[in-house]
């Protein structure tokens, strides 16, 4: 039964969030725990996981105050650490199963932690702020639990929680995928952006435009863009709406049917686990009376008649008895913004406007919506037409013979072979690539500390057991990973193939020598 049933330790995944500043006195240790999964583990077990983590953090801080422990590799478990905010740590413990599928890339798991936190902050603001608002921790716990459970439900495959594994080595979490557009379409899009943002009046507002599951334009800061993009692809785009189900853009399709199955049970299981959670009495004085919005809840968004997406996730506005508009908190401006989401065919437009500058709350928002309909409708039609004309479909970015991942770290953009094409690779190739990426991650981490300010170039070319070429190259912040399975035997051939790809699809960014 959904997460509730997997929440026994048998699955071998533990996930906790704790605050080092809390519970420092004997007997108050429970106070540290802000979240623990599975929630039904005995407190003694929970505390021992957290105690170990805390001990390691304290110890490693002696040597490396800024960046303490990143990972512990024990004989049977890997502990992945992420310091989300200062002294607020997230730790994920995964079991090294004999089962061959359970081979993780640590950096990938850490990105999961980072993503949970970023999304949480986008909806509720920083954890620390919430803790300060209600020092007993009830508020944060009552937010964390449903949010993270909703988040994790996206990783459900059947009844199993399946975290990103080596099979996802040609994907990069925490990035956006962009639509490549021609100059004319790009100008039209920019023109639309300006019209859209002018609908709010003179206040500074932002927008994000997606076509299908790909980003077209953003005026948000890079971090906010990633978060909102992630959320949009997860819950808002036409694809997310129609499947009505959980679907990380890079996890889907192969397992869509099983997802659909699990969704129906989610609502139920959620309530069950909440009961478990509350009965567990971690938050004795937790304010259970106030309603917690669950933005990651499934099937809550739908498209209204006017083209705007609606949801009752945020409840009902008290003043106007209208459905409350969604709001998000921007990291860059540290300001709460109304979300106004319009969808026309494949085009999803997200307009963000400061809550503080919209008078009359919900009425103000609907006035802006009216403006959008009046001023931008024509332009939206035009842009949609232009973009869909130029779009090559799901496999548009497939390059025959190559399985690749291209990451532009400066712009937080990645592009990869379509998932359907990646699945054609053999397990050996994927394992080799996963291993290679692990090494590259380490190397990158080292370079960051050794050589501050200068970026390191790196090139690795490996002949895997199955005779596939597995290649990684990093040049000035850009990374290109590639698997060539049907390549010739010589290294020269592989490097030629790489060079060709670089000059044709990367503007020669990787062709330095």
């Amino acid at each position: 039964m959904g997460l509730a049933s997997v929440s026994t330790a048998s699955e071998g995944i533990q996930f906790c969030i704790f605050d080092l500043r809390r519970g420092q006195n004997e007997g108050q240790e429970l106070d540290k725990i802000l979240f623990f999964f599975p929630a039904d583990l005995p407190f003694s077990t929970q505390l021992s996981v957290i105690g170990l983590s805390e001990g390691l953090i304290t110890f490693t801080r002696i040597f490396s105050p800024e960046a303490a422990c990143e990972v512990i590799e024990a004989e049977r478990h890997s502990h992945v650490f992420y310091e989300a905010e200062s002294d607020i740590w997230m730790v994920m413990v995964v079991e090294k199963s004999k089962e061959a599928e359970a081979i993780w890339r640590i950096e990938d798991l850490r990105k999961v932690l980072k993503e949970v936190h970023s999304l949480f902050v986008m909806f509720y603001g920083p954890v620390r702020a919430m803790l300060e608002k209600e020092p007993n921790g009830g508020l944060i716990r009552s937010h964390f639990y449903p949010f993270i459970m909703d988040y994790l439900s996206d990783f459900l495959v059947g009844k199993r929680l399946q975290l990103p594994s080596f099979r996802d080595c040609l994907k990069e979490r925490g990035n956006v995928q962009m639509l490549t557009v021609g100059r004319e379409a790009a100008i039209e899009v920019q023109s639309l952006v300006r019209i859209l943002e002018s609908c709010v009046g003179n206040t500074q507002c932002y927008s994000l435009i997606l076509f299908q599951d790909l980003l077209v334009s953003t005026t948000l800061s890079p971090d906010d863009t990633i978060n909102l993009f992630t959320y949009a692809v997860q819950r808002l785009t036409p694809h997310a709406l129609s499947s009505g189900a959980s679907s990380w853009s890079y996890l889907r399709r192969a397992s869509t049917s099983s997802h659909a199955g699990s969704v129906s049970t989610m609502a139920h299981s959620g309530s069950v686990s909440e009961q478990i959670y509350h009965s567990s009495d971690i938050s004795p004085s937790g304010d259970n009376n106030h309603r917690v919005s669950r933005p990651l809840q499934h099937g809550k968004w739908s498209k209204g008649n006017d083209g705007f997406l609606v949801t009752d996730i945020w409840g009902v506005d008290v003043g106007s008895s209208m459905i409350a508009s969604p709001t998000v908190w921007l990291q860059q401006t540290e300001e709460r913004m109304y979300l106004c989401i319009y969808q026309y065919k494949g085009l999803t437009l997200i307009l963000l406007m400061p809550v503080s500058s919209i008078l009359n709350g919900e009425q103000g928002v609907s006035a802006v919506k009216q403006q959008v309909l009046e001023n931008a409708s024509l332009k939206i039609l035009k842009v949609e037409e232009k973009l869909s004309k130029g779009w090559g479909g799901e496999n548009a970015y497939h390059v025959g013979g190559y399985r690749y991942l291209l990451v532009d770290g400066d712009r937080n953009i990645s592009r990869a072979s379509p998932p359907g094409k990646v699945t054609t690779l053999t397990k050996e190739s994927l394992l080799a690539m996963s291993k290679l990426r692990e090494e590259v991650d380490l190397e990158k981490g080292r370079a960051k500390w050794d050589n501050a300010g200068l970026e390191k170039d790196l090139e690795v070319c490996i002949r895997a057991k199955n005779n596939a070429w597995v290649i990684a190259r990093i040049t000035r912040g850009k990374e290109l990973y590639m698997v060539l399975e049907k390549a010739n035997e010589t290294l020269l051939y592989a490097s030629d193939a790489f060079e060709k790809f670089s000059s044709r699809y990367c503007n020669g960014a990787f062709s330095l020598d």
Partner: protein
Amino acid sequence: MSGKASSSQPSIGLGGSGALSHVYIQYPPLHCSIPGLRGLHYDDGNKLLISSTSDQIFSWKTVPFNPLATPTCDSISEGPILCIRFSLDAKLIAVQRSSTEIEFYNRETKETFFRRCRSESENILGFFWTDCPLCDIVIVKTSGLDLFAYNSVSKSLDLVETRKSNVSWYIYTHESRLVLLASGMQCRTFTGFQLSSAGMIRLPKFEMAMAKPEVNSKPVLDAEDVCIVTVYGRIYCLQVDRVAMLLHSYRFYRDAVVQQGSLPIYSSKIALSVVDNVLLVHQVDAKVVILYDIFADSRVPVSAPLPLLLRGFPRSYSSSRFRESENSEVNNTGESVIYGDNWTFLVPDLICDISNKRLWKIHLDLEAISASSSEVPSVLEFLQRRKLETYKAKQLCLGIVKTVILERRPVSVVARAIDVLVTSYSHSIKTGSYFKGLKNEKTSLSNVPNVNSPVSSTDVSTSRIDGLGKSIRHESAAGIDSESLNRSSTFSASESEDISSFEPLKTNSNDLQLGGCKANRASLSGADSANEVHRSFSKYQLPGSSDNSFNANISEQQDSQLTSPAISPDEMYRFVFASVEEEMGGDPSYLVSIIVEFLRSANLEKIKIHPSLYVLTIQLLARYERFAELGLFIINKILEPSKEVALQLLESGRQNIQTRKLGLDMLRQLSLHQDYVLLLMQDGYYREALRYAWKHKVTTVQPSLFLEAAFASNDSQHLAAVLRFFSDFIPDFHNTEDFNSYYRVLNEMNSSIAA
């Protein structure tokens, strides 16, 4: 801009330029100041104002209009002059002496010969010279047209062709090369011929509409009530219907004459002028003029009816200096005589004041017109269509666009304004009118699908027939209005066939006598109106030498250099964006929106943008740290790659490494290898720089720079590697100063490590 325009007006006695008006006449006029002059005639073929004494004729050039023009003098024999016209090559002078006789003078040989009517039953109504290849002169008689060729050997006219037709009266303008022959009881049935350089075309017969005052009465159409005007290279006939108080318009096509709707009139006496393709309907009784720009078949006046203004009349000047002697004259030229009884309106834009023997030229006050409307796009369209005062129109356009941006009008409004300017520029590039030198390339016009510019005689090119034949038939089948309906651009394709492109010589033979049609009719009906014209006037010397005119010429000179008010992207940048940017300050997102709209517009018209606008955009975005957007602009090539753009990215990227990298990448993609290598080194990537330099054969960067960078890294292995690299690949590097000094340095480093 506007400063200049106003400075072109004399500072004294502005003639009440504060007064509201959209059209003005500029003091001083051309004054026919020869004593003993007896009449004024206008030869529209040669644009000459002609007057005579008993045995001499004087002719003043009216194009270009110069109040100080000196007349040319020719001797002719004494006798009545009903009509006088110079041949188009100016070698012959034809004078209609009576309704049966025309006398010809050869100006070189002083020989004369006559042409007389053969039969008693027919009268000569008038004549005109033509540049039609068939003949040189056409004589219009009550029995039809006679076409004659001048035989220079026998010094006589050879009859080429006769077109029989009953003619009550006729009108002709050289501008249109069109002669309309009126016949029938009411004189409202018309036969038209166009005699252009492409030959003679017969237009279908048509009737003009006339409202009946009462059931049984049949009003007779007067020649005075019909006028041919040429606007944007199209030919229209306008007809005053005094009963309905309407001005009907008919447009001529090769095979059709189509009524185009009517304009209301507010005066029983109407006069028409065309200034710079704007139709001026003078409501003479009401003493106001209404402007129509019938480009888009719009029946809406350009502006409200306002009086015609006399500008630059030196009140104080005259009062101090001429009071005693010439008081009367001064009074006569005062504003009180605007639309005086003696005014005759000449095609297209002249007014002859017969009683004072003065010739005024009508001007549009573009500034006043543009100030009187708040519809920015339509004002810009109007200004962009102007061909005479191009400089002023251009400056006004720039000013208007600047103002709407500074006023932060809604982006959509500004976008439409920009669209107008960009489309207009694009059109002027296509037709070549933006570049002076390309002006003659008319042949290209026939490729433009919409060139159905009617029967317009204005098209002199030989490709005309093929070009027009098909398209016109097509057009008239599909409904003629479609031409202007389906064209959203500011200009018709025929625009560049503008009248102004005629060589002066070819221009014209519409020897309207001063009284115009009136005079012709006079010969029919007893010549009383002719007498009017021939009345002799009191003669005056032109007072002083009117200094004012010199000022007035300034903007005209600028105009003459500019053939089109179109604004290039470069000018948009310099006079709009860059200057607005200085004045605006604050959040640049509005200005960026405007620039995006401009780029959109320019992209649609495939117009190239100068990199300086891109550089400005980068500065604006970087100043407000909108680096994410800037990245999108670069990646999507909204700001097209160029060295200037790359360097600005590097500059703006001082605060933002990602932006700086975009600049570096752009340099690399533009294959600016040397700059790329130098910048890599500057950022500390000397080994990458060296690899890159090796691959792309960049030999211009000094080895010492690499060596210095390697030395600065304080890594002896790197220094050794770089040194080795140059030793291996540069011949004789061993013998250079660089090698020796860094070899020593390397040894020192190694020994210090060893020690």
